[in-house]
């Protein structure tokens, strides 16, 4: 395996709810542990799929890594360099290497700017545009890379479909030649047939530019298709990580198993989706000190609520956080 490009260690983000003075006195203050002590690595050239349901903290994780939100504690290292110690100028330089592609192609592009302006801006910011002509050349190059053309360069975002806008968002991410691209649900808002095109584009670009991806998604079949390794999150915690084949054919954690069982497959001959977990998704507000799944888990024991589950290596590189397996 290659060296790690991204290393995340004990990353934590807590939000304080009702943190004002009066509420504190009244004992109403609560802590929302959106991301709670997670650690993972993303190796050069690979795709790590970060999967989980709403509120698990996966999107927040993406934002913490790029410091769009400041972490509460923990470490984030890019090629060994401590990102959290960087000042604003150093972060600016670092961000050339990590770009984000967001979920909603309708809100991630500035509606008042042309494509030329949208794609030209990162070039300007990072000093990559020698002059107007050079900039335009580069923007055209980027458009071609994502399957769009010169006829699109002076148009506005509203003139494009969702799939095309996502291509523009990808072009924008590539403008500065990053090493790491973080996709935060980049295909979730797209129609099924468009998803296929964009997923192929991601693959193609990864091969061409030797990109490393952190691919955040809730759709398991998308994650299955694009990832080399997978990390499963539940209510702020990582519950299982491993090679994609392993995770999908031999899921170990009760939550991962439940997730796999719940996915309806597009084949009437396959078993129908089933529920193996009772109840609703746990809240990240004032969570138990132990396992977040304890109230819903079919194999929970009394200690699960109080003791944090240890990370066990079930197979090479396949880790599971559970007391009872």
């Amino acid at each position, binding site marked *: 395996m290659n060296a790690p490009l991204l290393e995340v260690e004990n990353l934590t983000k807590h939000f304080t709810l009702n943190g004002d003075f009066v509420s504190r006195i009244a004992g109403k203050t609560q802590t929302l542990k959106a991301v709670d002590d997670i650690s993972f690595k993303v190796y050069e050239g690979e795709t790590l799929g970060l999967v989980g349901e709403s509120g698990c903290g996966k999107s927040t994780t993406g934002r913490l890594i790029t410091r769009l939100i400041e972490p509460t504690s923990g470490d984030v290292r890019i090629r060994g360099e401590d990102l959290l110690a960087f000042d604003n100028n150093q972060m600016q330089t670092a961000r050339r290497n990590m770009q984000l592609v967001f979920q909603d192609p309708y809100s991630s592009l500035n509606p008042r700017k042309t494509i030329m302006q949208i794609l030209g801006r990162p070039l300007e910011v990072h000093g990559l545009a020698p002059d107007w002509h050079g900039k335009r050349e580069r923007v055209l190059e980027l458009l071609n890379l994502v399957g769009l053309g010169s006829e699109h360069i002076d148009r506005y975002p509203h003139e494009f479909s969702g799939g095309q806008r996502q291509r523009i968002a990808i072009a924008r991410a590539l403008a500065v030649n990053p090493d790491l691209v973080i996709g935060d649900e980049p295909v979730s808002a797209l129609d*099924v047939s468009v998803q296929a*095109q964009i*997923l192929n584009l991601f693959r193609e670009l990864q091969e061409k530019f030797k990109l490393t991806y952190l691919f955040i998604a809730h759709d398991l079949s998308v994650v299955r298709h694009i990832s080399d390794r997978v990390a499963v999150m539940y209510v702020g915690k990582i519950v299982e990580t491993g090679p994609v084949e392993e995770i*999908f054919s031999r899921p170990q954690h009760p939550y991962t198993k439940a997730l796999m069982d719940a996915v*309806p497959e597009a084949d009437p001959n396959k078993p129908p989706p089933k529920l193996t977990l009772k109840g*609703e998704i746990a809240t990240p507000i004032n969570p138990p000190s132990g396992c977040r799944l304890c109230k819903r888990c079919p194999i929970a024991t009394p200690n699960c609520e109080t003791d944090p589950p240890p990370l066990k290596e079930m197979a090479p590189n396949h880790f599971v956080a559970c007391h009872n397996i």
Partner: protein
Amino acid sequence: MQDSALDIENLSIKFHLKRGVLTAVNNVSFHVGKGETFGLVGESGSGKSVTARAIMRLIPTPPGEVASGGVNFGGRSIYDLSDAEIREIRGSEIAMVFQEPMSALNPVFTVGSQIGDVLRTNLGLSKAEARERTIELLSLVGIPSPASRIDSYVHEFSGGMRQRVMLAMALSCDPTFLIADEPTTALDVTIQATILELISSMIDRFDMSLLFITHNLGVVAHACDRIGVMYASHLVELGEKREIFANPQHPYTVGLLNSIPRMDTQSKYLTPIRGSVCNMMDPPKGCKFNPRCDHAMDICRQVTPEMKEVAPGHFAACHLHDQPTV
């Protein structure tokens, strides 16, 4: 058709917009049998939601217009009913569950008051009777502590719970027909599984027919008996679920099934349908899928294909299935 709960015949819906006329539903025909679950599948802009709303006469006219055809529900022609008559049917005989419960439910009224409203308007129940019935319904759809949750507001529920509330509201007057428009699209996969199971058990228990609208082929593969595939305002394929999945006959259906990532095999690249959906304000002549179709022939660019029976009970609108002329 005999013994069907719902019959849609040659239905066309147009919208008169400033920028022109948009035909959102183009000559669509299908029926839903009694006790059957029919899945109407399509991507955005295919016309499936407009079709569903047209059944309950929820399309504002203007700018909408029923340009042709009609909807027959239990022997009655929906578009020939008076306003009072359609109001009788809506909510009590045909009920609808929408996609985004946060937008479909009223944020300023309690859940109890909204469901109670439906009961009192449609069934003439008293306040007390409505409250009792509402608690029963909330319990039926699996909402814990219904007697206290009845006074909660919509925002105090999670997404899955809100959808249960919508379902409770839809079931409140014992409808015989349920329309579910993307009921689980906004929900997490584990919650989706619970809601699908709930809908399925309600259908069985109350012997209802269900029109299930979705773009999710996985959901349709398990939740439905028969399927209709829509593309750019047309119904392009229709048939029994297993038959469609095993033997898709329209190039769009084939393309769609080939393009989705699967849970089991990991091929490096997917096989997408090339190109994108046509501009509905200025669609291509003939079959609207022709610019993207690998099998397009001259006739496809001239003549819109009609639905033909390609196997018993299996229909496709494609010139590939035209009878050869002798």
